[in-house]
């Protein structure tokens, strides 16, 4: 089983690294990180703050957008180009194929997040700023966010076109990131709206958990530039994320299992 999943993952990795847009994204994010040195010197506050903000935003924003891009295309093109015919006809279960595709994507996205992180840490070191534990925690949280977004994209891609899957995944990502704001906005509304919002937010991954810098956690203000969340928080959020990933992949596998590849 592991061998078959790994074979699909490796092939997906090979396929994804040939997508030229990825290199454009890497250039863009690394370029933005380089720019933070100039921006940092112009900033009223310390330059490292700008580097951390831009670096983490780059990981979260471009990591998630790349996850959507890969997620909506890689599974769909297998069906569209019928490459799946020669794969599914081999002794591989369909869920193994879905998990393999996801694992391959996760591999590519991890490399991407790794490159973005190295670029950010490099800029911090150039500015003579050490690598704090807070920044490492923030990177781990962002990585989980990217992995969940990839699972969301794969889930939609298992039954929809890339365009619609992209729209749905983007919408979930945006809504997932502002869940506390949505809750706060409906606090003064009628109980019906409050309950509807609450139920809706339960079925949407709470991605805000993974980008908490600048907001309050359990009534305490946290920031990647100062006091940040504990490793315990990172662990619990990771478990929450893993639950969503497993759930979304299971749903994607069920939907994929029901499909005919005519």
């Amino acid at each position: 089983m592991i061998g078959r999943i790994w074979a699909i993952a490796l092939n997906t990795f090979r396929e994804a690294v040939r997508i030229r847009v990825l290199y454009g994204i890497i250039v863009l994010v690394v370029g933005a990180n380089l720019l933070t040195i100039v921006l940092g010197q112009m900033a009223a506050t310390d330059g490292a703050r700008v580097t951390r903000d831009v670096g983490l935003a780059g990981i979260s924003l471009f990591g998630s957008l790349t996850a959507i891009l890969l997620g909506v295309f890689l599974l769909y093109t297998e069906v569209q180009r019928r490459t799946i015919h020669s794969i599914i006809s081999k002794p591989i279960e369909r869920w193994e194929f879905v998990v393999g595709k996801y694992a391959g994507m996760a591999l590519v996205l991890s490399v991407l997040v790794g490159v973005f992180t190295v670029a950010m840490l490099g800029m911090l070191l150039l500015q003579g700023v050490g690598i704090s534990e807070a920044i490492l925690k923030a990177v781990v949280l962002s990585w989980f966010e990217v992995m969940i977004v990839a699972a969301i994209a794969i889930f939609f891609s298992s039954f929809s076109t890339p365009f619609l899957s992209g729209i749905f995944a983007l919408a979930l990502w945006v809504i997932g990131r502002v869940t506390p704001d949505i809750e706060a906005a409906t606090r003064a509304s009628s109980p019906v709206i409050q309950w509807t919002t609450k139920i809706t937010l339960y079925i949407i991954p709470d991605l805000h958990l993974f980008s908490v810098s600048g907001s309050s956690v359990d009534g305490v203000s946290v920031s990647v530039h100062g006091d940040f969340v504990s490793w315990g928080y990172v662990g619990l959020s990771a478990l929450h994320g893993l639950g969503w990933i497993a759930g979304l992949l299971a749903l994607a596998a069920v939907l994929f299992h029901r499909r005919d590849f005519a």
Partner: protein
Amino acid sequence: MSVPAIEVRDLRKTYRTPFARKKVEALRGVTFTVETGHIFGFVGPNGAGKTTTIRTLMGLIKPSGGAASLLGHPIPSRAARAKVGFLPEAPYFYDYLTVPELLDLAGRLFGVPRAVRLKRADALIERVGLGRARNQSLKKFSKGMLQRAGLAQALMNDPELVVLDEPMSGLDPIGRKEVRDLILELRDQGKTVFFSTHILSDVEAITDRVAIIARGQLQAHGTPAELVAKTIQGVELMVRLAADVDPGELVTGADKVRRIGDELSLMLPASADVDAWLQRAHAAGAKVISVSPRHETLEDLFMREIASADSSPAAMEGRT
């Protein structure tokens, strides 16, 4: 008695169109058996249900009814797929891979150990004639080369049963001959080969059994000899007659007459008195070249079965 390589019983597949929800019956109760060690040709016009049957057997499509088994395992079966090699119709593979990489992927999915994988891939690449293209990506392959790569990946697990959907498609006459030879070689190794095709001469040349499918139903099933040698359709009388001589009464009563230069071909009815015709030919001053009974060919049978399927009540219903 050995387990059949393929057993299909009353297999049905009905699609529904996305919006109108109209029923489209792709398979209407297909039944046949493929014995182990045979080469089985699956013949039919476009849209007959050949590919739907094959994709159902390979687990790509779920049947709406009926049952099928591969090597004794009811479909869809992972255990059966481990022993089956499959070449899809007009195969499209990952175009960024080279042939060795494609075969490596196939081998990994079949769970073939690395050392065996490498050795078998090398042998298959040479066997299908892609040795000189082994470092090229599949993107640069012609249709025929892709077909060969597809055949190689179908054999990576040293299968007991090989299912080939239109394996001769896109190949030149040399390529077709090579595929025919490969199919015969596979049978000689004790493997069962099930293939679909439009090319009837290939079917006649190499198959042990044939099934003709049209409009989602099996029209005929048997050995090529059983299917076509049941009756004599007529007698062909070839005579030589001076080009300027009018054949006159000699051609009266013939079903078909063809004259090329001084050679005259007469297709006589199966019930014709051949001795009387020979006497008429001598009387007309013609020299008899040959007299040969005309059996039904697979092509005749194919055309007849297709015509009969097209005029069946089910077909008429489909048109209304």
